[in-house]
């Protein structure tokens, strides 16, 4: 489940996963692991497809469902949409 805290950490590394692996603090690594990181990247990519008009209606619905299933709040979904 993605939370605003995960997004905050992701943004603090400017989406650089290697930077996160290299320099994340123990506290950050306790909150965020690779599954969170890759899920955020995947969701951002999906939202980007929608923003660029490249996704079908059916796929857009699938993405909305994925966002609801994997994010803890509307604020988190909004934060993801803002990053895409």
């Amino acid at each position, binding site marked *: 489940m993605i939370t605003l805290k995960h997004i905050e950490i992701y943004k603090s590394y*400017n989406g650089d996963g*290697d930077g996160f692996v290299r320099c994340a603090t123990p506290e950050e690594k306790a909150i965020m692991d690779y599954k969170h*990181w890759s899920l955020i990247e995947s969701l951002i990519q999906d939202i980007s497809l929608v923003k660029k008009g490249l996704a079908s209606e059916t796929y857009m619905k699938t993405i909305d469902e994925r966002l609801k299933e994997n994010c803890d709040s509307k604020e988190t979904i909004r934060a993801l949409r803002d990053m895409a």
Partner: protein
Amino acid sequence: MSHAEGALEIASVIPIGKVARVASVAGEVVEKAIVNTTKEAAAKGGGRVFWSGGGNEAVEAAARKFATNNGMTTLEMTNAGKNLTNLTQGMSWAEKGPMWQRLSTQFAKGANGTVHVFQNAGGINIKSVWGAIEYPILKQNGVNIIYHTVP
């Protein structure tokens, strides 16, 4: 690597504005950390191992293990990498990132012969240091790259 060379290597990746801030610390850390080892000698040009995991720690771990087992080195295993890790503790990624990018650039520029790169089987980011900095340098310099994927 001499102490002076180690200090120079670190200084070259720290922005001018940061030099004064870390200089007093750098002398002490470099003094303690710089040791010329066989592995580092192997890393002078060849024997370099790169990695890009897109957030997957297993990739870095695999690269480190491979390097250790084969007398090679990753950037983080070099004295410069260790020193930069120590010197930038507590800094934000916005501050650390450019320093690591400059060190990665030097690491790639100094490579020759054959290098190894470990990558996440799930894909890597084209904007990663590997994709944006290290790979173009290695390719331009005609370095042979052996790829390894980590699930």
